[in-house]
């Protein structure tokens, strides 16, 4: 049995070699000597052109629109089709969008997770049905072919270190407040956890408040007014997101404490965040730059499209670099929203 198999195997190999020779011969005829550079391009074209990428953000806010803009610009150039579904912050709609996209069988599925669990099962199903999956800015409990985004705990630690530098060791009252996003959003939870650990490690720092603001500038302003009322000697605020912090900064300004209360914000690099620093309302932003993140997403897509292994074969990570924004000179670390 095995002998027969081996013989058939040889025959196949021989046949294959013959056909191969014939093809090579004809190619040489057609294109003279094969140009390795042209071949590289053809290989790239074959792997990439005409492929479909499906993209499901949590919603199309400023950050997500910037990712989408960068992706679209590159994909148009490569001849990749981009399908976008905007669930507008509704997790049931997002789950449905992902489920129905899996049935449409795109080549790559990109998702931005709202929580670590919501999409986990569907992402596994997507990979099982042969779709390569990229997760953006927050990984779910299900690891997939690639992750692109900020190292969120690291953001929290870096902000905390800066806050300790400004407020610790007797350089101020040592009293600090943390403004969280939504209580259940993992992006906010992870950053708050890492920041709290780093702040607690320093004996001179006291966290007087750590409250969720539901990403709402009004709520952030209310909480901040409240905290300032109870702790007039507050030294610093650590916040996980720019737009809601705008409200907190106004509350600090209204209390006449602009400058006394240092405000450190994790930023996606949206223009308004840089404006706030330039107006002296924020002390410093730590920007993870949505524009360069968009390019990292494109690179991950190109890598996976050119990788002939099936979905689920790798777990690549593209952690993006963070940049401190502390004045006019750091404008480059914020992106520009183009006029439509």
């Amino acid at each position, binding site marked *: 049995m095995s002998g027969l198999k081996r013989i058939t195997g040889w025959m196949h190999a021989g046949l294959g070699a013959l056909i191969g020779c014939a093809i090579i011969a004809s190619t040489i005829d057609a294109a003279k000597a094969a140009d390795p550079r042209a071949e590289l391009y053809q290989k790239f074209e074959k792997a990439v052109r005409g492929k479909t990428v499906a993209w499901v953000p949590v919603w*199309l*806010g*400023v950050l997500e*629109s910037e990712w989408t803009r960068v992706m679209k610009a590159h994909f148009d150039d490569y001849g990749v089709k981009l399908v976008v579904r905007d669930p*507008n*912050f509704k997790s049931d709609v997002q789950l449905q969008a992902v489920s129905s996209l899996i049935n449409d069988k795109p080549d790559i599925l990109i998702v931005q997770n709202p929580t670590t669990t919501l999409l986990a099962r569907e992402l596994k199903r997507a990979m099982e049905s042969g779709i390569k999956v990229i997760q953006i800015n927050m990984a779910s409990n299900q690891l997939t072919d690639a992750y692109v985004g900020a190292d969120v705990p690291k953001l929290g630690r870096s902000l905390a270190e800066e806050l300790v530098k400004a407020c610790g060791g007797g350089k101020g009252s040592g009293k600090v407040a943390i403004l969280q996003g939504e*209580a259940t959003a993992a992006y906010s939870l992870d950053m708050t956890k890492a920041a709290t650990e780093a702040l607690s490690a320093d004996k001179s720092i006291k966290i*007087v*408040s*750590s*409250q*969720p603001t*539901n*990403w*709402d*500038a*009004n709520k*952030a*302003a*209310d*909480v901040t*007014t*409240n*905290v300032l*009322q*109870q702790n007039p000697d507050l030294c610093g605020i650590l916040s996980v997101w720019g*737009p*809601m912090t*705008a*409200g907190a900064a*106004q*509350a600090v*300004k*209204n209390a006449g404490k602009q400058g006394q209360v240092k405000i450190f914000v994790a930023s996606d690099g949206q223009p*308004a965040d840089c*404006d706030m620093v330039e*107006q002296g309302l924020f002390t410093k932003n730590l920007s993870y730059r949505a524009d360069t993140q968009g390019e990292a997403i494109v690179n991950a897509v190109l890598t996976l499209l050119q990788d002939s292994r099936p979905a689920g074969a790798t777990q690549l990570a593209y952690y993006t670099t963070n940049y401190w924004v502390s004045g006019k000179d750091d404008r480059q670390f914020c992106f520009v*929203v183009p006029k*439509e």
Partner: protein
Amino acid sequence: MLATSQSRGSYKPSQSTIVLGVTLVLFVALSLALPGFASLGNLFTLARNISILGILALGMAVVVIGRGIDLSQIATLACSAAIAITLIDDGWSAFSAIGSGLLLSVAIGIANGFLVSVIEIPALFTTLASGLLVLGVTRALVVPHYQVFLKPGHDWLLKLGGTVMGGLPVPVIAFVICALIVHLFLSRTVLGHFIYAHGDNAQAARLSGMATRPLTMFEYAICSGIGYIGGVIMVGSTAIMHLQIAESTLIFDVILVVVLGGVSLVGGRGNVLSVIAGTLLIGVLLNAMTIMNLDIQTQDMIKGAVLLMAITLDSYIHPRDEETAKQGD
């Protein structure tokens, strides 16, 4: 309410009195237990934090007393205020920009009232849909990324979120003025009485010669207009309008405050005091929990428990019957 208390011949405290009582008990307990709670500064902070909610609730109360409901209130104020900021940022004068926002919000209110009273679509569906429509159109045409920042250089508008006379927050003054005007309107004017009559029995009001259709449009216009005032104060406090608030639970907080204080969803009942009582209870709770730095789960538990307590107490003192039964009972 009046009828039951007369027929039984004994004093029955109204729902707003009960809620005020609960608030007072909480307030005393917290003043004793929580250092820094009873200070004048904290009272200003407390009042400031609930004044926007209170203003919105005043507008909502007018519609609810007229046996309606306006689920589009937040969407309308967010979009009108966002458009007003966009105009200011584009160099319009303050008066015309803010005025245009007000006109827009009032127009949306009138359109709501028209759909409810003339086309006769239930208020719940009308305002649910109109809120979505307003939000969608604004997002598509004016505010693509959900947020507008007020550009620097408009400090006069930011004064609306500031304080005057040694710490008195401007939003609180605005709430007091709005409350006073709405109170006088509802209790002293013919139109105010018409709204009660309309909510109590729309058919009877109509048969006795009131123009209930224009009246409905008027109610919804007041709700949107007062809501817009709240929206402008939001901008004054934060220098940003984020349309996401239209999809947050804020609208339910507004309805909760209204209903909690005793403005019944069946219409014709409650007054400005009810709104103030409901707002104060929520305000005391939120303020104390922020001072105590409680985590969100504990906050939800306490909020839920206190609300249930207030409602239970009310139903114990006012047993449900045909007359006092509320929608959904």
